[in-house]
């Protein structure tokens, strides 16, 4: 449509353009033509133009509408698309909803089923409830039956109470019997007293008997003593006899005594005399000794005297011997002084002379040194001169030789020149020349060698001569020195002596120091030796390998190890015992046979434990039995008497009646110090004032009071 539209548009446009162009031409052509026809044509043209325009315009509108239509269609399509999509979505939703619906329907069905079940259960439980209620009713019926039974039981209790009364009567009878028996008891006690008195009498008799026996034994002892004394006395008798015999000897002894005493006195006197004499003797001896000493001294003195006299004589004769007119020692001393002075002067001269001699000798030595130097110089110069003479001679010889050679050569040359004419001489000449030259060279070299050897020899001899001369000079100088040394000895020796003396003193000091050190070291060594040190270079310390200390150490170690083992074994034992107490026999048997010792105690222990357990069991059973019995008795009492008796505190008993209206209704009884029971005030007892007055104060019977109370309460219960 569009294309068609386009083509129509184009065609219209073309036609329009063509129309426009035609008219133009015609316009131009027709311009010249008539004017009225121009207006019509213009009008026609304009009308055609208008129509064309309208056509175009309508075509445009048509095209626009087409386009809009297309757009509309497009939009329609889109809308349809969307609608379809929405439709599909909604279809899907629908499906979902449908599914959900179905699920919900299913759930609803399930719930309905559950509800049905629950309903069923409900009905079942209702049925059960009904059944239980029926049971309850049954039980209630049984309870009622039991109550009936209780009533019958109460009746029986009443009958039992009657029996109790009868029993109490019996008890009273028995009390009377008991009193009778107590009387009998008293009688018996009186008899016992009698017996006891008799017994005491008998015991007294016994004691008297024992006393008598003891006295008897004492008597026996006394008798024995007396017998012993008798024996002693007999012995004494014998002794007395011997003494008597001895006594008879007494006067003789006395006489002897007297004699001895006299002797004693005499001896004592003589002893005193002896001592005196001894003292005298000693004194005399000492005197003797002194005398002898003095004698010796005398002799010595005389000898000395003789010597001294001789000396004196000699001294006196000195004067005569020396011829110096000496008569007194003063002269001698004077002479001596003079001599000394002379000596001093001479010594001074001596010193001066010595100093001069020394100086002279010094100068002499200096001169000698100069001399030797001069000698050496002269020798050197002589040697030089000789060498130069030798050189000169050698040179002269050389010159002679050279001249001789030259002459010889000239002669040869002349001879050859003379021989030249006849013959041809050049090769022979040259040969001979060469030979001659060779010979020359050889001789020259030989000469030079010889000359060199000669010079060497001459030099050696020269040096030897020099040495010899110097040695001779030294020898001469030494000889001269020796000769002079003996003169100056006395001077030099003194200096040497002092030097040597100093050296000696130093050495002595060192020696002393070393000696002291040595002593100290020796003392130290001794001390170390005392302590047992030794020089390992020289000594060795030995001992036996199996010595007691080593053996003792070994034994000790073994003991220690054995003790350790025992300790570990005992620890294990103890642990096993502590754990084995709870374990039975069989386990103990499975232990080591080394525990055989431990089995016995563990068996005992187990037996003891078993006994303990059995006794504990017994105790427990007894306790249970007692408790049961007590409980039974109490219940029986309660049932029969109608009162429950509780012990609240020491000696206080609380009684609650069977027929009590309230739980707290109770009667309190206290046991007094004399054994009687007293009723204490309680709230319940306040309500029973009348009965208290009647039964307790009047009749003074607690059982009557209690029975009255029960009857009263029972009557109240049954009426209520």
């Amino acid at each position, binding site marked *: 449509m569009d294309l068609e539209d386009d083509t129509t548009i184009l065609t219209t446009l073309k036609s329009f353009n063509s129309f426009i162009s035609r008219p133009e031409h015609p316009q131009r052509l027709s311009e010249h033509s008539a004017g009225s026809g121009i207006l019509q044509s213009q009008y026609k043209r304009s009308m055609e133009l208008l129509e064309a325009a309208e056509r175009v315009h309508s075509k445009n509108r048509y095209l626009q509408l087409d386009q809009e239509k297309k757009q509309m269609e497009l939009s329609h399509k889109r809308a349809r698309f969307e609608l379809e999509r929405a439709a599909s979505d909604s279809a899907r939703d629908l499906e979902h909803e449908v599914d959900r619906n179905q699920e919900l329907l299913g759930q609803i069905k399930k719930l309905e089923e559950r509800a049905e079940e629950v309903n069923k259960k409900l009905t079942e439980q209702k049925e059960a409830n009904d059944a239980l209620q029926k049971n309850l009713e049954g039980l209630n019926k049984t309870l009622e039956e039991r109550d009936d039974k209780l009533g019958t039981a109460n009746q029986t209790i009443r009958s039992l109470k009657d029996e109790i009364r009868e029993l109490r009567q019996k008890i009273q009878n028995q009390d009377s019997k008991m009193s009778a028996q107590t009387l009998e008891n008293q009688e018996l006690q009186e008899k016992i007293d009698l017996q006891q008195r008799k017994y005491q009498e008998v015991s007294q008799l016994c004691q008297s008997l024992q006393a008598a026996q003891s006295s008897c034994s004492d008597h026996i002892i006394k008798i024995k003593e007396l017998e012993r004394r008798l024996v002693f006395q007999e012995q004494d008798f014998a002794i007395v006899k011997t003494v008597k015999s001895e006594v008879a000897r007494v006067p003789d002894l006395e006489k002897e005594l007297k004699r001895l005493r006299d002797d004693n006195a005499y001896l004592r006197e003589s002893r005193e005399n002896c001592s005196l004499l001894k003292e005298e003797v000693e004194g005399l001896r000492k005197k003797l000794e002194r005398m002898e000493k003095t004698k010796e001294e005398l002799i010595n003195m005389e000898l000395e005297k003789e010597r001294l006299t001789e000396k004196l004589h000699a001294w006196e004769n000195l004067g005569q011997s020396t011829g110096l007119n000496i008569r007194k020692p003063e002269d001698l001393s004077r002479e001596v002084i003079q001599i000394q002075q002379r000596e001093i002067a001479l010594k001074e001269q001596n010193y001066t002379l010595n100093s001069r001699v020394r100086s002279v000798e010094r100068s002499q030595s200096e001169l000698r040194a100069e001399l030797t130097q001069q000698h050496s110089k002269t020798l050197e110069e002589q040697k030089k001169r000789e060498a130069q003479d030798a050189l000169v001679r050698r040179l002269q010889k050389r010159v002679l030789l050279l001249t001789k050679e030259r002459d010889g050569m000239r002669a040869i040359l002349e001879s050859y020149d003379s021989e030249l004419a006849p013959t041809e001489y050049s090769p022979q000449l040259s040969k001979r020349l060469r030979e001659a030259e060779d010979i020359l060279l050889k001789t020259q070299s030989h000469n030079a060698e010889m000359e060199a050897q000669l010079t060497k020899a001459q030099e050696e001899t020269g040096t030897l001569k020099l040495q010899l001369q110097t040695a001779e000079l030294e020898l001469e100088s030494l000889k001269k020195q020796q000769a002079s040394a003996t003169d100056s000895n006395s001077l030099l020796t003194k200096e040497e002596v002092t030097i040597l003396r100093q050296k000696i003193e130093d050495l002595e000091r060192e020696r002393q120091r070393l000696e002291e050190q040595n002593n100290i070291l020796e003392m130290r060594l001794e001390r170390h*030796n*005392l*302590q*047992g*040190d*030794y020089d*390992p*270079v*020289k*000594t*060795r*310390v*030995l*001992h*036996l*390998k*199996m*010595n*007691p*200390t*080593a*053996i*003792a*150490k070994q034994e*000790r170690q073994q003991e220690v190890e054995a003790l350790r083992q025992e300790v570990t074994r005992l620890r294990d034992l103890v642990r096993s015992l502590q754990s084995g107490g709870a374990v039975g026999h069989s386990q103990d048997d499975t232990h080591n046979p080394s525990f055989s010792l431990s089995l016995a105690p563990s068996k005992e222990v187990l037996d003891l434990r078993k006994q303990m357990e059995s006794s504990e069991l017994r105790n427990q059973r007894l306790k249970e039995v007692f408790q049961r019995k007590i409980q039974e008795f109490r219940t029986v009492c309660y049932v029969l008497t109608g009162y429950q008796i509780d012990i609240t505190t020491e000696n206080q008993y609380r009684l609650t009646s069977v027929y009590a209206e309230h739980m707290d209704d109770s009667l309190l009884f206290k046991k007094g110090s004399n054994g009687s029971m007293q009723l204490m005030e309680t709230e319940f007892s306040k309500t029973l004032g009348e009965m208290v007055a009647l039964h307790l104060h009047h009749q003074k019977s607690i059982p009557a009071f209690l029975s009255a109370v029960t009857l009263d309460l029972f009557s109240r219960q049954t009426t209520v």
Partner: protein
Amino acid sequence: VCAWHPCPSTETALGSSDNLEHRRKDRQVRLAAFGINSILYQRGIYPPETFTRVTHYDLSLLLTTDPKLKSYLTNVVSQLKEWLFECTVQKLVLVITCLETNEVLERWQFDIECDKSAKESSAPREKSIKTIQHEIRSVIRQITATVTFLPLLETPCAFDLLVYTDKDLVVPDKWEESGPQTIDQPEEVRLHSFTTSIHKVNSMVAYKKTESA
């Protein structure tokens, strides 16, 4: 063991060995054995009931009856005799050690100075029994006297005999070298020395100072 038999018979029996030197050495060695026995008895190293009184040289002396101790002493003494004869012994030491702490508590030292030249030139100087008795008595008296000032040995102790010999000696089979076993900071007491014909014996005892002292 012939060393322990009563004296006169052994004197003659040994005399048959024909050497006065041997007899002298025996005497000295026996002296040493008596001294050791008395030290062991006085210091209580062995219980007193193990010692018996034996008569030697007309003296009543204490000797041990413990067989192990006896055999040990005879071993040592016989070897000592040999060495004395060769004059290679310098000292004989009896060391008492405490078994618990292994410390040396006492040290009895006998220094023997041997006159080697006298070995060959043995002028036979017979010793009378009186001199022998005197020697033994002096030794034992000294040992007994020292007990008065030596500290008590309260812990169980054992003893050992050491012999100081020359270095170049051949060590016999059962012997071994040991240390000098000296006491740390000892108190020393010199005892009376006595001489035999060729030996001069100096004796001393060193003991460890007790803390209370």
